[in-house]
């Protein structure tokens, strides 16, 4: 029996506008650019993909199931710029075949810097998902699938969760594979779902690559690969950016046709089905524990944090940002707090990545700055202004205890 478990990450950051050291304005975000991107991606990906998912769910009468993680920053932008997308997500929620996951509202790296902030953002995210889709998420995925042993401890502490999703990195699995359910070493109650990165990346990255020996990838061939899991696993976790459909892989690559045919090809084998993450963990018990002392993510070959914290600029920007936490929260100024939180979105630090900059690779594709240096300069100018705004406001008497008392988490 192989259960296909789809989870799609849906996210767009609030990009910053060009902000020099001489600027004094308090509107940091490039509303025009953000609207433009949101509408473009809505038309190329979100709307056609959502409509296709609705069509498939209806066609297979409950046998085709998927899950999403939609960030708070994206949902805010959809409400503003592409409400039609939100409507179709609500329709998907109403089918009963779609699960919504929890994550940090701001798609942040707060796990690594502030436990309090991390917890607040998860709570805020659960709230917006409940409000919009009438579901309370029970499975957690962290930004960029970042994970280490400290994460399950905090997720346990928040409560209400059954499982965490992360990367099926080779080095945490050893001789084992990602097609089973596992448990973290640091929590007895939670389960782990690990991404099958080979099959996921076949769709997300290699689908349209003509140099790939398997090109063109058709649904029957892919279903055959999934079927090979039978006997050596229960579940195939296909986790990817939703923008794979129509944005990273353009419509003319045949990606939508591939998706349209896939359920039929997979269900052709009677042993196979589709399950949501919650169904997977109900159906299968954990076969072993996974120990992750060193932080992993789903990024690049390294599967580590180097895309966000790989150079001194990124380290500095993140440290300075979280250093402001108390000061920001003590102002009690909701605008300042919201701006500070939007600055936490991981994309801002990804733009500063210099790893593959000179090679003009995937990092560049997602970057609206001319260079990672420009990204850092811009971010720090904004942060300086935010700091200045905090200084102008006298500290409020204790707003909420959780806001002021926090500790930096020790992370390996």
């Amino acid at each position: 029996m192989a259960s296909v478990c789809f989870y799609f990450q849906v996210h767009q950051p609030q990009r910053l506008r060009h902000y020099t050291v001489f600027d004094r304005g308090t509107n940091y975000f490039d509303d025009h650019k953000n609207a433009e991107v949101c509408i473009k991606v809505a038309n190329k990906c979100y709307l056609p993909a959502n409509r296709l998912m609705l069509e498939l769910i209806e066609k297979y009468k409950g046998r085709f199931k998927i899950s999403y993680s939609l960030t708070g920053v994206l949902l805010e932008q959809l409400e503003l710029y592409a409400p039609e997308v939100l409507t179709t997500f609500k329709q998907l929620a109403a089918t009963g075949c779609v699960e919504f996951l929890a994550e940090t509202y701001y798609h942040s790296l707060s796990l690594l810097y502030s436990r309090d902030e991390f917890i607040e953002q998860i709570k805020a995210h659960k709230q917006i998902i409940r409000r919009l889709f009438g579901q309370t998420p029970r499975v957690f995925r962290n930004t960029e699938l970042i994970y280490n042993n400290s994460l399950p401890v905090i997720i346990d502490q928040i409560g209400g969760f059954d499982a965490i999703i992360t990367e099926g990195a080779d080095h945490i699995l050893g001789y084992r594979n990602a097609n089973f359910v596992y448990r973290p070493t640091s929590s007895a109650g939670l389960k782990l779902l690990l991404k099958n990165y080979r099959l996921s990346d076949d769709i997300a990255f290699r689908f349209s690559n003509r140099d790939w020996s398997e090109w063109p990838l058709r649904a029957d061939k892919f279903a055959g690969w999934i079927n090979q899991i039978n006997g050596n696993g229960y579940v195939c976790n296909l986790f990817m950016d939703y923008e794979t459909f129509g944005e990273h892989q353009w419509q003319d690559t045949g990606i939508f046709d591939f998706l349209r045919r896939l359920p039929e090809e997979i269900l052709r084998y009677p042993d196979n089905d589709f399950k949501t993450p919650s169904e997977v963990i109900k159906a299968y018990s954990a076969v072993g524990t996974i120990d992750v002392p060193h932080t992993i993510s789903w990024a690049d070959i390294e599967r580590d944090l180097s895309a966000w914290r790989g150079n001194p600029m990124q380290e500095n920007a993140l440290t300075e940002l979280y250093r402001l936490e108390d000061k920001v929260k003590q102002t009690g100024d909701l605008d300042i707090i919201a701006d500070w939180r939007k600055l936490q979105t991981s994309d801002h630090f990804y733009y500063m990545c210099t790893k593959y900059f000179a090679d003009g690779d995937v990092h560049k594709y997602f970057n609206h700055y001319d260079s990672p240096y420009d990204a850092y300069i811009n971010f720090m100018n904004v942060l300086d202004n935010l700091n200045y705004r905090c200084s102008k406001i006298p500290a409020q008497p204790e707003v909420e205890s959780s806001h002021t008392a926090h500790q930096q988490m020790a992370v390996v």
Partner: protein
Amino acid sequence: MKVFMLGWEFPPYISGGLGTACYGLTKAMDELGIEVTFVLPKSSTSHLAGHVNIPSDQRCAFKNVRFLMISSTLRPYAQVAAVPASRELGCSATQQTNAPANIGPGQIDDPNNYGGDIYSDVRGYTDKAVRIAATEQFDVIHAHDWMTYPAGEAVSRQSYKPLIVHVHSTEFDRSGEHVNQQVYDIEQQGMYAAAKVIAVSNLTKNTILKHYDIPSEKVEVVHNAAEHSGNESQHIPLDEADKIVLFLGRITMQKGPEYFLAAAKKVLEEINNVKFIMAGNGDMMHRTIELAARMGIGHKVLFTGFLRGEDVDRAYQMADLYVMPSVSEPFGIAPLEAMNRNVPVLISKQSGVAEIVSHALKVDFWDINEMANKMIAVLKRPPLQKTLSRNGFNEANKFNWEDSAMKVKKIYEEVIAKAQSEEK
């Protein structure tokens, strides 16, 4: 394969990037085993320049390159003051021909912006080069910049060998829109006569296509490189208190000194503990000094004059940031040299080097606000300085003259093969 090469600058007698480029390229060609006869003007009145640190006796280190000296006074750029060189070249391979005319330093403030009676110098150089060529064996002629193009054409006519002209800069780069028609005509004539035109960047290629009416397929781009030290350099501050922003190059219209000052003024409005060093001279030096004073930042801008040898190294060592605000820079080797010395660089987008480097800050030369924004960021934020310095060093090390020489060699082979097939 034998090359008859025509140049007018070679270290240590240089006033700009041309000599540096000729040295780097020729040295790499020497190592590839390409035989070169390099005809140079005898540089007794050329300006002794130091910003590339190459001892004169290195000329003797070439195995396959022979240098022939013509007495003449070719100087590509106007100078504020010429310093007579004291050293003579002591290479055994060096031959000298008689000087046709010797123009002294007194005649340099020519209104046409070129030193001396440039046209008679060019004629003199051409005559001598043709005479030398008559006794030489070679397969291809390679001429560097406009002053040697007439010689290249004449030698090509006489020998029936193909000509390659190498464009290190054009009249549009040097003089903006106020082009010297005579120089422009010489440049265009050379490009017409050439079998191939080598441009030092895509930027320069585009200038050639736009202004000189040359078909695109005739122009090949071969980027310059820089000699590397191989080791990371140490940062030795001038003093504890002040950060240093370095401008190193000729102080001429082309190099954008007034944009540098305008940005400096904006920087000083935000941070005080910074000094701006302008190293080099040129026809705008006096005006630039006056401008700094008029802007009220005279005490923050230091003019060193032309730096040479160790002084150049010292300038790089104390610099927190190197800025090249050029209005028009066909290539720009100096930023690569700065990167080789672990100095972060901010370069104008209107430069050839901006096409090939990633780990540099880039700005439109006219965008004073952004230039100052980026200067301040480097001065204020050590992590930025560190990341730029480290990555810039690694990147600059990837560019080498061997790659450029290989490309030039391929162009020689093509041109020679084509000439031979046309002969048949």
